[in-house]
């Protein structure tokens, strides 16, 4: 039985709001080869104009959300357009760091059980 106070409504409203905005996570982006769907190094997108030089004209795009983060991996379940009002971060390591991402989170698609 509930023995003490009620839950503050402000907390609940904040939680609902957060679910729709601030509490949502930042969106990860990486550069992909749009012909193969595979992740390539960021410099391909940073200097996109330099790659349109000859057949087969691979074209590189930033790809947002979904799974597949490392060069060579297939990126999917994401979008070519960033979500509105979300902070975009790159999957690749910041300069001077040796950070990799995407090592967890590929095999489970939710549902509270076990």
């Amino acid at each position, binding site marked *: *039985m509930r023995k*003490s106070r009620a*839950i503050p409504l402000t907390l609940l409203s904040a*939680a609902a709001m957060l679910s729709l905005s601030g509490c949502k996570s930042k969106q990860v982006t990486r550069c992909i080869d749009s012909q193969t769907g595979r992740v390539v190094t960021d410099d391909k997108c940073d200097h996109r104009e330099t790659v349109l030089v000859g057949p087969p004209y691979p074209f590189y795009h930033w790809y947002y959300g979904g799974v597949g983060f490392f060069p060579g991996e297939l990126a999917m379940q994401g979008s070519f357009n960033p979500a509105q009002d979300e902070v975009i971060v790159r999957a690749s390591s910041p300069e001077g760091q040796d*950070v990799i991402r995407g*090592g*967890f989170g590929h095999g489970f698609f939710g549902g*509270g*059980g*076990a």
Partner: protein
Amino acid sequence: MKRCTITPRKDWREITQKQGLTYSRLPDGSDYWNESAYYALSKRDVETLDRATERLHNMCLAAGQYIIDNKRWRDLGIRGDVAPLIERTWIDEPPALYGRMDLAYNGNEEPKLLEYNADTPTALVEASVIQWYWLQDCFRRSDQFNSLHEKLVAKWRDLKNYVKAPVFFTHCDLEEDAMTVCYLRQTAEEAGIKTIGMLMSQLGYDAQQGCFVGFEGERAGTIFKLYPWEMMVKEMFWKNVLERFPEPQWIEPIWKMMWSNKALLAVLWEMYPNHENLLPAYLDGPREMVNFVKKPKLGREGANVSVYSSGIPVEETSGAYADSGWVYQATTASTKIGNKFAVIGSWEIADQGTAGIGIRESDHTIVGNTSAFVPHLIE
């Protein structure tokens, strides 16, 4: 315990969404939240569920030690590189938060354990928050078996000097999971603990520092993950967990793999045969049972479950968990309440005890991911 029908609040959908239930619409188009009915429990029902949950929790503690002492890793499908971490965390007791036992109970006999969602339980927001405000609107003078919010905050207060803030809260990219984690972050923040939220796939590993990191490369000392250990041990960062163990603190700790595995049901029956809160359960087949449920050791949301009557399958669900091995558990009439089949989700907050219930119901024997959540009150 009885099921009563009632006229829903006119604007219930808008109300519940504002309160946090932003995932009420199910894939089949039906509503997850159903307030056209409620369950009425007596004080004796509540005491019975409370007592059974505590008793079962203590039995699960004993079962954890039994699994370790007898090295039952093969029965649980746990690899040799994982078992030492389970043993170490079982002894060291790093922070743990919560779990949800699913019980069969209709008031006619003792509650029976169907499974223990000890690693990644959801259906939390509706149990803690949504049904509480339904009670305030519809039955203000009644009470509810629900102290989830207070006990979660109290638990975080207990953990405040043990966790390494900011605590990272990670989850899959699903609305329900995001909202569950969002609510848990709120309870931690209410206890004065700073938090950061991110997707599990966004968690970084800094090889130079040898630690898991956030968006800005900041070290993650404590990570709450609404993401199952049985998946983590198959993924790329598992080797980094092994290398850096016991850092960071993972909530829930990896020893929860022993409880979140339905092989636990067979271990419990082996330890406590004919216990009034257990159903016969085996790993090697149904043995003498002709009325039983075959379910995957690592299944979720009622997936890959087959119901047998007189030895013949009469109902089954599909899913993606058929490769984890099976548990055979006797069926029970205790899920039948009126014309519905209901499962009681009984919440246990670590060191705080039983914290209330949520009820999901179905027209079918198998209560799964399209089963509605129905509020309750105490008469």
